[in-house]
């Protein structure tokens, strides 16, 4: 139980961003970014969005289980989710922002988690291998999401959301046939315990 992290419980374990963005301009229009030109990126930037209505989940951050929001990854593709591409190569996100707002999402400032990489972009939770391949790290990603909660960019998961996810996983863990899948059952049970503890901690706070 003591390993359940809420911001108010364990400030000493606050996660830090895994890599500092370079501050280079992203090829977006409609977000008030600087006019410096970046044309036709090789790898488009990634976008993250947060919704208070989405259930949180349990992620491991620096070896400690934490209850964190499940963010939405919006891939920068013209023609999807209201995104368009301007003639100069910039992505126009105004339609995306309309759609996100209409369905309760908030776009998280993309300058915080995209770094320039070989004429394109890569997320700060990725690493570049010796062969040049960019590989995302789920552990670094979880640390990054934790840092967004710790620095106040995102609110900690709501009691209602934690309760919904705990209820969902409780139904999974107690399904009669989960006895045939001990590893998955134990994982679900452990997460239910962590979510319940987080719920208690949130209630106590």
């Amino acid at each position, binding site marked *: 139980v003591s390993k359940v992290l809420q911001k108010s419980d364990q400030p000493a374990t606050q996660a830090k961003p895994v890599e500092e963005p370079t501050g280079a301009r992203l090829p977006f229009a409609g977000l008030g970014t600087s006019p410096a030109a970046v044309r036709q990126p090789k790898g488009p930037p990634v976008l993250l*969005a947060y*919704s208070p*209505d*989405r*259930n949180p*989940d*349990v*992620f491991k951050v620096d070896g400690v289980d934490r209850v964190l929001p*499940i963010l*939405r*990854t*919006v*891939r920068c*593709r*013209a*023609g*999807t*989710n*209201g*995104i*368009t*591409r301007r003639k100069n190569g910039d992505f126009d996100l105004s*339609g*995306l922002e*309309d*759609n996100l707002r*209409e*369905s*309760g*999402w908030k776009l998280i400032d993309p300058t915080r988690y995209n770094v320039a990489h070989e004429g394109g972009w890569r*997320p700060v*939770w*990725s690493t570049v291998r010796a062969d040049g391949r960019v*590989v*995302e*790290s*789920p552990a*670094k*990603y*979880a640390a990054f999401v934790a840092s967004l909660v710790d620095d106040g960019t995102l609110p900690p998961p709501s009691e209602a959301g934690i309760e919904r*996810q705990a209820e*969902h*996983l409780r*139904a*999974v863990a107690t*399904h009669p*046939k*989960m006895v*045939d*899948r001990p590893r*998955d059952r134990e*994982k*679900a049970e452990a*997460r239910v315990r962590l979510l319940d503890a987080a719920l208690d901690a949130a209630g106590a706070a």
Partner: protein
Amino acid sequence: VAAITFSDVLTDQRVSEILNAEWLRLAKDPNALPNHPAIRYAKDFAGAGTLTLKIPAVGFMGYDLPDQIAEGADVPDSTITDSQVTLTVARYSKAYSPTDVVKYTDSLGIFNAASFAQDAMQSHVLKLTDLIANVVDGFNATAGTTTQNLSIATVAGAIATLEANAHQSIPVGMALGLLHPDQWGDFRTDLISNAGGALQYHVPAEKLRVMGLGYAGEFLGIDWIVSDYVPTANAGADRAGAIWLPGAVLWGDMSQYADSADSVVLGNKILFERDRNARGATTSFISHSYLGATLGIDSSALSHRLGITLISDLN
């Protein structure tokens, strides 16, 4: 796009031991999403004057019910509940430029206009599948948990949540479930163990013809499609498939027309063109389509959501 030169194919496709009338298609998911009520065609942008349109969602046909009014009292005006979705389309294109040498020495019979036209047709249809798969990971509601295999218990919970959020039970044949092969494999394994071998996997041939080879059958009232285009989630830790009802996913395209002798429109939507570079002795085969997809009704404000994202282990 660089031309396809003879030197490109000389060392790997034209060596004598593999000169053969047969060729193998590289193994990537060739199955597009089928026509299905859950995938709502919203707009042909031809003549629309724009590539961006707002699609209204209106609470008509019984969304808001009548109020009881006292005898002799005036009935106040009812407010129409509404929402809106922004749908955009963008140009998607590809071009192949074989040299004359490649075409004339072609022993496989594939470096020709007919093959490139077939490739264009399938590529653009699969692009739409790719676009739709990459929006349905964004529903507000989720089921499953990170790094855990998809199970029948998770899917049962997802359906219950979807029914509650959509304020309706799922009519058989109206909901579509889209899973990555990783997810489907775990789900199927769990189904087999739950059914004790009693459940047989047999999709009738006539349904396969309608739904395509990605169709994995109907189960729990949902038509299941398995696609490699389902994206990752949580930075590659998971896959994010989905289940959704009509109105949750919208897509649009644009009809095109050919206005030159070397152009032809495939299926009204794909412009396929031939462009001869006489000096370089290359012929380009170019195709364009205009496609777009977005989430439809997934409103927190109205508490009305028609889709749910399924998070499970990537394997």
